[in-house]
């Protein structure tokens, strides 16, 4: 639970995708998702091509497909929703295996599933090939307001602190014989949440003081300047540009 997962999302490597400047990657992923979302849902083949594009990127990044698929599990709540759509949506009905399904709902389910899955897969690839810190640097380079970058970087740092403190408190609770079993123990857990908050804060505050003492004023100092060359930008642009071509074909063939 918490941002501690972030480290497991990242997959260390030295592929061309790993080495790309983070802001190029973020821009490319965003462009790709934008194109995917604006594709007509009837153009099923287009979504297949998008998937092929992503698999190619995964191959370039040397990210195993199994890893990618495991990460897609985050999508499960939406899959559950999408499966329900044909049953609850209105409109003309079709009969499959004796069940009456809404045609519109089926299209809707496909729409959410296809676009959602492609979006998730693109983000998973981004997270798998970009370290958290790089990601923040990238967002900073893409002109995200410094205050937001600051909150985000503290958030990631505290994520570790919170998971760590949570583990310690759980050990402390359990070594005194407490185990959360059902609603009766919620008050204890709720109180733990308050204590957790303060403990995490005070620990994180010390880190912050150390940073401030060394001249931190709200933005991370640039130690290794990452500037993207024209070649890197065009390299990153391959994915969204190809996707755009697919999308435009999809619209013209409709």
């Amino acid at each position, binding site marked *: 639970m918490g941002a501690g997962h972030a480290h497991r999302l990242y997959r260390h490597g030295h592929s061309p995708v790993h080495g790309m400047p983070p802001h190029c990657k973020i821009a490319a992923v965003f462009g790709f998702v934008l194109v995917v979302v604006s594709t007509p849902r009837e153009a099923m083949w287009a979504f297949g091509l998008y998937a092929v594009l992503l698999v190619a990127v995964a191959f370039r990044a040397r990210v195993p497909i199994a890893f990618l698929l495991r990460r897609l599990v985050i999508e499960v709540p939406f899959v559950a929703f999408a499966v329900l759509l044909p049953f609850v949506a209105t409109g003309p009905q079709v009969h499959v295996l004796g069940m009456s399904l809404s045609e519109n709902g089926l299209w809707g389910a496909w729409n959410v599933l296809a676009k959602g899955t492609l979006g998730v897969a693109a983000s998973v690839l981004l997270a798998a090939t970009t370290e958290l810190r790089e990601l923040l640097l990238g967002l900073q380079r893409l002109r995200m307001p410094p205050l*937001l970058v600051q909150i985000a970087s503290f958030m990631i740092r505290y994520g570790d602190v919170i998971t760590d403190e949570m583990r310690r408190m759980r050990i402390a609770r359990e070594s005194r014989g407490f185990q959360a079993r059902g609603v009766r123990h919620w008050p204890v857990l709720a109180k733990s949440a308050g204590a957790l908050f303060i403990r995490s804060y005070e620990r994180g505050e010390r880190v912050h003081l150390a940073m401030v003492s060394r001249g931190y004023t709200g933005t991370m100092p640039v130690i290794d300047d990452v500037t993207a060359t024209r070649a890197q930008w065009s390299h990153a642009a391959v994915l969204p540009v190809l996707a755009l071509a697919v999308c435009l074909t999809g619209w013209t063939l409709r």
Partner: protein
Amino acid sequence: MHVPDGFIDTPVSAATGVVAVAAVAISLRGARRELDERTAPLAGLVAAFIFAVQMLNFPVAAGTSGHLLGGALAAILVGPFTGVLCVSVVLLMQGVLFADGGLTALGTNITDMAIVTTVVAYAIFRGLVKVLPRSRASITVASFAAAVVSVPAAAVAFTTIYWLGGTTDVPIGKVATAMVGVHVLIGIGEAAITAATVGAVVAVRPDLVYGARGLSKPLELRTTPTGAPLVPGEARPAAVTVATPAPAAVVTSPAPAGRSNRPVWIAGLIAALALAGGVSYYASASPDGLEKVAHDKGIDEKAKPHANDDSPLAGYSVKDVGDARLSGGLAGVIGVGATLTVGSGVFIVVRRRRRHTVHPIQGQGA
């Protein structure tokens, strides 16, 4: 409640994107007043905390997914502007890192989960803190109330967005019932966690709770005359009251006139909520019948459910009467909440502005 890519159509996604960008821009300006060097990490911690609680996902029957939102906690601990920023950052990072919530749906997600929760919660919180006695317990109670309302409010906002730009024709009533029903439950859980957290922080580090500024008294600082022999206990210095260095100085105490109005306020609020909740509970039986008929007859007419729903709260009740009554009652309560929100929002804005013009130095000096 994280909306995936392709769930809301492009115009509405774009519109909510504009709303989100505008709100974040306003919040960035406002947050400069709320944050200083020492509270900046607090905003990060709040974001991390929200991140953690949002990971607890409950699947919701015919809605998307439900989880704790954290907007109330953020607004109370770090202030409404910073609160919006915190939750927005959480949503952004979830979208980019965990693919939770689509990138193109970011505007929609920020609008209903960051803006609506934070603003509603903070308005209710400030309103209650003004009318309740000035104590730490009141802060906790107000946090509970703010959180309890903020979650269904976000569900209503989501339903509205869905109604405007949903890509599939699920009857709006079903969406509303599922979303609001589940989020009332989630709201209770959220309220418990918010109240416990705020309560614990207020007890130990009241200086960290934005919403509780103004509770602590001015500090007394004893100083020894410099250069004197400094053996403790030997020369007890005279007590000197010095202007406090803490954020405690930021919010002034309420006008004395506020006290006499307080019982009236409380009574009025309780009555309004009871009326809205209770009366709508019984009143909702008839609309339910009406709608059921319309639903049965016009099932093939796509436009019909939309035409019925002039307001996002209209299409609450569908098949089950008991549920419908409950949700109808809730609609009432939320309606009151919304009205109260708008009312106190205006009030607070006016108050804040006046306060800042009166104490500009104290306001920034924390």
